């Protein structure tokens, strides 16, 4: 790393570590994690008693589920919401605000290449994202332990550490997208608006669009009465037992819906993150407590990491092209 890049990295890291925006997002993570954990926790409590009006007790051991549901559910839900915001918060103003305030003129009047400026900013963002993701994940452990008595095994911990990679990649994907928007913008407010719109599209619009596409392709589900399916089971994602109980026509229908939505959501960084992290904590079978081995997960879910990495690579490359070569001297 050149000295000029190191100077920019140091300034960017210190600047953000002193900012309310950065720590505010970590606080948001903690609050959201507690809220989501509480929501999922109460859903699990509901499983212990017979489901109201259904008369059927829960089929899974609640204590066994807690770790998976609380950690994987709460952590990945919170992270998939906060990590994009972290990426956007670091990226939208990276260049646009410097242009707006005129600081970029003083920087570029120095003997420094434009790509060095971008290198410094990207490296600093990676460090800041890694710190935020690590701190947030680390905070989730004592919170879960305190609130719900979750105990973490060595295997859980190693998988939790491994989940930092997609978390960082998710935040970096949004950072790269925001950086690209920032490079194209002269005003940080405009850049922020476009970043938020992109986030809304990828987080909320795309899943709805995927379902609508599936519905328009397959039509409405076949009208078959569901007598034995617990609504609560579906809500918390315990689909193993539910799927067994579905009539073949419905099972086939939902399988096709799943295939179509998955095909559309392949471009969703949030979905790729969510899928990969959940895969990390998938058990070999409903009857066992051991997880699927990591090699198998990587072999089957590598595409999730590849999509996230592609977001980072493509938008970073575009940022370089437009910032370095578009109109000004390198």
């Amino acid at each position, binding site marked *: 790393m050149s*000295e*000029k890049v190191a*100077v*920019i990295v140091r*300034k960017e890291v210190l*600047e953000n570590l*002193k900012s309310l925006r950065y720590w505010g997002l970590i606080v948001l993570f903690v609050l959201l994690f507690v809220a989501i954990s509480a929501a999922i926790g109460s859903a699990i409590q509901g499983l212990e008693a017979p489901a109201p009006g259904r008369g059927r007790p829960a089929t899974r051991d609640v204590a066994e589920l807690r770790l998976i549901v609380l950690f994987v559910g709460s952590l990945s839900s919170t992270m998939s919401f906060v990590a994009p915001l972290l990426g956007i918060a670091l990226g939208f103003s990276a260049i646009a605000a410097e242009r707006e*305030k*005129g*600081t970029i*003129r*003083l*920087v*570029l*009047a*120095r*003997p*420094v*290449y434009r790509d060095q400026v971008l290198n410094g900013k990207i490296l600093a963002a990676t460090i800041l994202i890694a710190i935020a993701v690590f701190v947030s994940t680390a905070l989730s452990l004592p919170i879960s332990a305190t609130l719900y008595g979750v105990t973490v095994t060595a295997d859980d911990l190693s998988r939790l550490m491994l989940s930092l990679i997609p978390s960082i990649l998710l935040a970096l994907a949004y950072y790269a997208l925001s950086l690209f928007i920032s490079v194209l913008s002269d005003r940080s407010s405009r850049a922020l608006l476009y970043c938020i719109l992109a986030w809304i599209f990828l987080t909320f619009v795309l899943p709805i669009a995927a379902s609508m596409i599936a519905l328009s392709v397959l039509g409405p589900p076949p009208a078959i009465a569901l007598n034995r399916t617990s609504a609560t089971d579906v809500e918390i994602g315990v689909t193993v037992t539910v799927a067994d109980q579905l009539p073949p026509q419905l099972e086939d229908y939902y399988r096709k819906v799943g295939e179509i939505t998955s095909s559309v959501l392949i471009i969703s960084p949030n979905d790729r993150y969510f899928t990969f992290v959940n895969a990390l904590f998938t058990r070999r079978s409903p009857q066992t407590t051991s997880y699927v081995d990591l090699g198998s997960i990587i072999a089957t879910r590598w595409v999730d990491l590849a999509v996230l990495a592609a977001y980072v690579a493509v938008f970073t490359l575009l940022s370089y092209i437009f910032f370095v070569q578009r*109109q*000004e*001297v*390198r």
Partner: protein
Amino acid sequence: MEYAIETENLTKIYRDRAGEVAALDSANLRVPKGVLFGLFGPNGAGKTTLISILVGLQLPTRGTARVLGFDCVKQSLEIRKRVGLLPENYGFYEHMTAYENLEFLGRLDGIPRGELRRRIDEVLELVGLKEWANAKVKTFSRGMNQRLALAQALLKDPEVFILDEPTLGLDPQGSAMFRELMTRLVKEGRTILISTHLLHEVGFICSHAAFIRKGRIVAQGNLEELAKQYREARGYSYEVVVQERPEDLLRELRQLEGVVEVGLENNTIRVRASRDIMRELLGVTGRYQVRSLRERAPTWDELYQFYHGGGWGE
């Protein structure tokens, strides 16, 4: 003559939906080494674009520009090592102190850590901001920001200074400090290019100037060279200071060939002529009780009005 800055047919065309706008149109600028050079022109004349190209912030559409012999496109990094720039519409990191801002910029300049601390103290002292070194820039007034901008340009002790509207926002004390500093730097052998439309602030300390209008350099040179063109178009002005009301002298002056106007104000006779009549004036005034006779050189303001007000090149 050796030039610190030299441009040849420098052209910058901006394209947008409305069409093309030539911010610079075949500009040929020559700034000799070791002078205080004014680049004078109204807002939108192309001054900032020209400066941006000189330091590599923008690419020219056509033409060439060299600073200290380095090409502005191919060797812009070498230029930025040697040029202290005070750009227009600059900004500092407001949550950082004056010292921290200078430290960051100084390190990007490549100044070694140990030397940098000393240089920051020196330049803050020079611009009168030493007491404010540890104050956050967001608390600074416009004038203090301008002083800090000057400090950052001085930081690497450059051979050439390029200053865009450097006195904007400075109070009278700040302007005086600035002029004194510029004069001193030129004496030390630095080249200073000052771009401004506020001639009354810095015009009189410049020894050379160029007038830029609609992206073209319409005239350039030292004061004498520029005044010559002015005189050829507007005529020559002389001032004769006398001891008593000289009716005969006034009559004789009016009869000289080429004299356009003769006026008397207190003890000073002002003569305007369409040609150089100094020799004849010496002959005539020699016969009277005259305290002094001198040709009145045009001021920068008059030259500005002349070169920009339609008196030249239309």
